[in-house]
C-alpha cells in the first residue's frame, strides 16, 4: 500500500528526468564551467609567448580544488608544437618547469604566497577568482552574465617576461596595467 504512491512518483520523476535529458541537447554550446576553464587554460598556451622555447608545455595545478579531471583529456596533445603536460604542485620548488600555474579561488587565502613564489619567473598565473588580477596575478577567469570571460593584468604579464597576442588582449573583458 505504502509503496504505490512512491512508485508512481518515482515513475513520473523518471519521466521528467528523461525529458530533461532530451531537452538539454538543444542547448548546443552550453558547457560546464569546469570544461570551459580547462579549455581556457589550454588556449592561453596558444596566445601567450614564453621567452625560452621548450619541447613541452606544462600546466601546473595548485592546491586542493583542481581542474585535473577536465584537463586529463588534453594531456599529451600537441599545443603549438609542444607536448602538453598537467601536473599538481604544492610548494615553490615544484614550479621550475611550469608555464602556466592555475590557482583555484578556494585557495584565495594563499594567493599572496603563491604569487610571491612565482614572482619574476616566466609563469602565466591564472585563477578563477575575480580579484586575482588586482592581487597581482596575470589572468582571472570571471563568470559574467552566464558566460566565462577573462581579465588580464598586463603589468603582471610583463613582470613575468611574457607576451600576449593582441587578439587575446582584444578578447579580454578587462585589461588592467599600463602596457596595453
Amino acid at each position, binding site marked *: 500500500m505504502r509503496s504505490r504512491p512512491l512508485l508512481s512518483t518515482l515513475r513520473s520523476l523518471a519521466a521528467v528526468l528523461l525529458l530533461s535529458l532530451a531537452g538539454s541537447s538543444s542547448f548546443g554550446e552550453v558547457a560546464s564551467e569546469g570544461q570551459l576553464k580547462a579549455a581556457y587554460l589550454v588556449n592561453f598556451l596558444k596566445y601567450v609567448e614564453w621567452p625560452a622555447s621548450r619541447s613541452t608545455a606544462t600546466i601546473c595545478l595548485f592546491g586542493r580544488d583542481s581542474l585535473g579531471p577536465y584537463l586529463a583529456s588534453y594531456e599529451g596533445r600537441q599545443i603549438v608544437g609542444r607536448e602538453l603536460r598537467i601536473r599538481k604542485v604544492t610548494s615553490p620548488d615544484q614550479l621550475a618547469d611550469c608555464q602556466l600555474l592555475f590557482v583555484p579561488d578556494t585557495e584565495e587565502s594563499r594567493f599572496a*604566497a603563491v604569487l610571491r613564489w612565482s614572482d619574476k619567473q616566466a609563469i602565466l598565473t591564472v585563477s578563477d577568482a575575480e580579484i586575482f588580477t588586482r592581487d597581482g596575478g596575470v589572468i582571472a577567469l570571471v563568470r559574467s552574465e552566464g558566460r566565462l570571460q577573462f581579465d588580464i593584468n598586463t603589468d603582471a604579464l610583463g613582470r613575468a617576461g611574457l607576451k600576449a597576442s593582441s587578439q587575446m588582449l582584444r578578447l579580454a573583458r578587462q585589461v588592467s596595467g599600463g602596457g596595453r
Partner: protein
Amino acid sequence: MRCKKVLSLMLLAWGGDVLASNAVDEMGLEELTKADITSVSRKSQSLSDVPAAAFVISAEDIRRSGAQALPDVLRMVPGIEVAQIDSARYAVTARGFNGRFANKLQVLIDGRSVYHPIFSGVMWEADLIALEDIERVEVIRGPGAAMWGVNAVNGVINIISRHTRHQGGGEAVASLGTQGKAGLYARYGGQLDEYTRWKMSVQGRHAEPSQLYASGGENVDRLNNGVLDFRLDKDLGAGHDLTLWANAVRSSLGDQWRLNPQYSGGGSFLGMNNYLIQQSYTSQSLMGRYRWLSDSGVESSLQMAMTDSGIEISEYFKEERTTYDLDYQARYAFAGHDLLWGGSHRTTSDSVTSATSVVSMANPDYTDRSTGVFVHDDWTLIRDRLVLGAGARWDHPMRGGNTFSPSASLMWTPGRSDSVWLKYARAPRVPARAERDVTIFAGVVRPSAESMGLPVFLRTRPSSRTLKPEEVEGFELGYRKQLTSNFSTDLAVYRYRYKNLISGLPVSQDFSMLPLNIIQNVETYNCMAAWSNGAEFSADWLVSAAWRLQLSYAWTRLEFDRSANPTLNATAENDEKSGPRHFGALRSQWNISPIQQFDAWIRGSAGFYRANAPYTELVRVPGYMTLDLRYGRKFGKDVELALSGRNLLGPRRIEFISDYIPSPQSEVTPSLLLSVRWKF
C-alpha cells in the same frame, strides 16, 4: 542529412558529456568567451587530494536544497545523520552516536567552535549564521582531533562565511510557508575604499508549533529566531589582510519536558506530565583575524574571538557565559613538504542558576581553560603519486588532563583519475560540564512487581570518580575515481574502536515516603567500549550540461562490548539499536532553461529504536523515504521566485525521540514554502 542531425541529437542526449567536451576541446579563445555556462557548478567538488572522507556543500547546493535550517542542508552529506525532533530542534551526528546533543561532532563557524560546553553539542535550533551568508560547508567525517582539537571525534563541520566581495549591493529574500513558517533575510554590502569592503545582514525566522505525534494536538515549539551579522575585509597588500566579524543571535523556542510525576488521590503513580518551558538562547560574538606572509614564505593567521552567550529555560535553568578564543596557525611549503602548525587557547567562564528539583548544577560559577598545540606535514614522497601525511596535537583541558591525538595518512594517486588513501587517527572527547556537574531526573522505570509496585525515578548525579576523556582510535580506507570528466565516485570504509565511553551506572537508592516512590541514583563512569564499522558511498554525475545527479549512501554499525554488569549489558544492547543502519539520498539538479530550475531530492533512513523517554522501554522510530522538490524561476536579472516542498512523500512520521531531556514526540509533516529573492 536530417537523419544525421537527429542521430547526433540523440547521441548528445545519451552521451552528452563525451560529445560536449569534445566540442569544447575544439573551441578557440573567441568561441570560449561566447559559450554559455550552465549554473551547475562543480566548484570545490574535486577533493581528489584530501586523504579523508570529505564533502563540500556549496552556496549553490544550499540555495537549491530549499532548506531553511542548516541541519536540513547537512542531509546531503553521506555519513551525516540528521533527524528532526520538532519545529527547530535536530539531532545531528556523523557515523553514529546520535542524540539531541551529539557530543562527538565538532562544528566551527569561521574557525570558532560552536560546540556548547554544558550540553556538549550544538544548539541547532538557533540560527547561528544565515544560510545566505555561507560560502561553503566542509564536512570531514572521522576523527579530526589531530588538527581541530578535542571533541572532533566522529567528524568536523567547517562553516565558512562569504567574503564581502561576493556580498556587495543589496539583497532581500522573503519566504512564507505552511505551518506558519516565515523568513526574512536582508543584506547590504559596500566598499569604503578599493581595499576595504563590508557587509551587514539580518535574518528573522518564525515557525508555528508542530503537531504532537501521539495525539495530533499542537505542541508548544513556537520558534522565533533572529541573526545580525557584520563582516569587514581589509586587504593590506603584500599578503596581509584583516577580517572582522560581529554576530548576534536571538532564539526563542518552546518545549515540553515530560518530567512532572502525577499521582492519583490514593498516591499511586499515574505517569509523567509535562512542564511547559520556554527556552531562549542569545549570543553576541566579535571576531578578528589577521593573516600575513613573511619574507621567508611562512603564511600565518592569528584569530581572536570573544563571545557572550546565555541560555534561559524559564524557571528551571539559566546560564551566562563568556568565552575567549585565541588561535594561531602557520603554513610553510618547501621541498615536497607542506607544513602546518599552530596553537590555540580557550577560556570559558559560566555562571549557572538552577533552582528546582528537576535540574541542578554543582559549581555554579566555573571557568574552564584549555590549551593545545599541533603540527602537521604533508610530505610528497613521489611527485604526483604518493603523499605521506602525519600530524599530532596535544591538548591540555583544565579538567580532563592531557590528551594526545596523532594521525597519519598515505595517499596514493596511481593515475590522474584514481586515488586511494589510508588513514589512521586517534581522538579524545573531553567530558562536558553537564556530565560532571549536573543532577537531573532523567527517566522513570514504570512500577513493577520488582519495585513493589512503585515507580523508580532515575536521578543522574555527578560522579564520585573523576571522568576520563572518551577515546576513539582506528583506520579508514578510501577510494575515489573520476570515471569521466563528468562522473566521479567516492567510497570510504572505516573501523574504529571506542574506549572509555561514558555511561550511567546505578549506585544508591533513596526512598522518600510521600508520595511513595524510589529514587535510583545514577552516576556516570567511563565504563563502555564499542566497535564502529561503516561504509559511505557517493557519486556525482553531470549527466548533461543542464542536469546533475548526486547519490549518497551510508551504512553504520555499532557493536558494544558486552559486560557482566546487567545494567551495562542492557545499555549496550539498546545503544546498538538506537541509530539507523542505512541512510541514502539522491539529488537531481536540473536547469530547465537559463531562467528555470527544477530540483528533486529523494532521501531516506532505516528505522531504529530509542527509549520512550522518560520511560526506559524501547520504541521503534520507523524508517522513511521522502521527497523534496523545488522549482525556481527568474524574472529579469534581479528577481527570483522559488516554490519548495519538503517531506512530500510517505506516511506521518517522527524522525527521533529526544533523549537529553524527555519531551513528547513531534510529527514531521509535509510543507510548502514560497520565497522571493530580490537583488538591488
